[in-house]
């Protein structure tokens, strides 16, 4: 393992110091691991708080800013944040209109955010939570912890963030956040495993001829190991899996997301195929994102996330946003 770090224990704190130095629009508490929009809470605006393990950059701290998150709580690498962080972030952004927690569906995230929400309630901060669980690779939710939250998190945070910025009440912001999640599905493929700084070696081994299909974003192996194929076929597997779960039609918002170690040129190759697969199924990629948004350290691979748009969602997607990783309209 070779990483551009100062030691496994220092990665998260150091990266937060870098984030603070690079983005004066963020207030970063590197010690307590809280990233908040500078300027303090806006009275009457619903606060949006998310968080999760580190190693998925730019998620979540890279989405803190105008029109998206008010605060992010990064945990250790692949480890959900602790309740204290979430409570502190929630009170910091509370402008009197309540706080929405955007929680990816992992046992750790769910439990820590749940404890935090209870503590927030004790402190008089009204909290609503939305659970993101878009990953169709996880089936049989009776026998699993349920679907993982992956790429749709970006859509939920952007769209709910736009509505919160427009001054909508907590219930409305929560409603649209849930709607985005309900209308979104993801599927991921790994060409190589990632290496956590603590483990120091890849979480699994893949030969030159193999891929993992249906991976999550924590370096865990996927549902199945399969033979390596070209971009057209691999994206076809992803779109098929999504389409089978949620038939695709009409205008969609689509993200081709890199897992951290895949260069942009390959993501554009993949996007060309995804757009084609969507068209074949009668859907139209009305809006798109191509790049590294929800990563898994240095993993090579990609995920596809599709959201079936409504006019409202499209309008909120197009609304101005100003964060380190997503910016338009201002």
């Amino acid at each position, binding site marked *: 393992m070779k990483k551009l770090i100062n030691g496994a224990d220092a990665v998260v704190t150091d990266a937060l110091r870098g984030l603070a130095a690079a983005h004066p629009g963020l207030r970063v508490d590197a010690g307590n691991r809280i990233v908040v929009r500078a300027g303090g809470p806006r009275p009457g605006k619903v606060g949006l708080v998310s968080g999760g*393990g580190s190693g998925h950059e730019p998620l979540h701290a890279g989405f803190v800013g105008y029109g998206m998150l008010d605060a992010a709580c990064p*945990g*250790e*690498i*692949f*480890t*959900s*944040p*602790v*309740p*204290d962080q979430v409570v502190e972030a929630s009170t910091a952004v509370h402008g009197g209109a309540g706080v929405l927690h955007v929680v990816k569906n*992992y*046992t*750790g995230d769910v*439990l*820590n955010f749940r*404890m935090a929400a209870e503590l927030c309630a004790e402190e008089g901060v009204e909290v609503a939570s939305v659970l993101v669980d878009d990953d169709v*690779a*996880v*089936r*049989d939710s009776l*026998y*699993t*912890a349920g679907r*993982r939250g992956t790429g749709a998190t970006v859509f939920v945070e952007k769209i709910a963030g736009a509505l919160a910025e427009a001054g909508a009440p907590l219930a409305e912001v929560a409603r649209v956040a849930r709607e985005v999640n309900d209308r979104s599905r993801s599927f991921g493929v790994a060409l190589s495993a990632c290496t*956590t700084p*603590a*483990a120091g070696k890849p*979480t*699994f081994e893949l030969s030159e001829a193999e891929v993992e299909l249906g991976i*999550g974003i*924590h*370096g*865990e*192996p996927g*549902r199945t190991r399969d033979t390596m194929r070209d971009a057209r076929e691999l994206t076809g597997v992803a779109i098929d899996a999504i389409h089978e779960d949620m038939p695709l039609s009409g205008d969609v918002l689509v993200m081709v997301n890199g897992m951290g170690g895949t260069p942009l040129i390959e993501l554009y190759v993949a996007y060309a195929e995804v757009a084609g697969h969507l068209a074949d199924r009668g859907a139209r990629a009305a809006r798109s994102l191509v790049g590294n948004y929800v990563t898994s350290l240095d993993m090579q691979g990609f995920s596809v996330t599709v959201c079936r748009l409504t006019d409202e969602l499209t309008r909120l997607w197009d609304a101005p946003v100003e964060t380190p990783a997503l910016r338009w309209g201002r």
Partner: protein
Amino acid sequence: MGAEVGAEVLTPAFFGAWIEEAARSVRAERDELTRLDAAIGDADHGTNLDRGFTEAVRALGERCPATPGAVLVLVGSTLIRKVGGASGPLYGTAFREAGKALGDAPAVSAADLAAALTAGVAGVRRLGSAAEGDKTMVDALAPAAGALAEAVREGRGLDDALGAASAAAAAGAAATIPMPARKGRASYLGPRSVGHQDPGATSAALILRALHTVAARW
């Protein structure tokens, strides 16, 4: 050695020694726990627990709680505040519930400890809604609580009783190997989780073994 089962010989110092021994043991097995978690999870269980128990030892050193119950509640709260992930709230709740079960007695008996462990396991079950056989820490904790309660009922000595609990936890952890996971991250792997020992069950067995180690020299 071998205090009477009914005797209230377990002081705050005993519980502090337990947590120190657990921290030592988790530190020693950190990389192995992480390796197990890499196979069916996300490769952080060793660092998570190492961080948490290190902080717990530090917190006990700073605050020196006066009762066994307060020791365990502080340990649980510290784990919740420092670990994160699934294991933070779960172990944190286990220790907090166990501590609450001990009330504010200045020293407790093996029977009290058995009841506390049972309360702790119940807390984990409630929070994580995992049943035995789901391939989680419950598969080590529940048999351990059962074995301890049984040994206490049978009137066996502390060392002996905790030896039984530790052995049950180890056996429970080993028994997770052939199970397909139904809770936590490993469940995403479905049948591919078979053949690997659950990291949380493994750490639970370590923590129970630490309890026995400390009891044996108490």
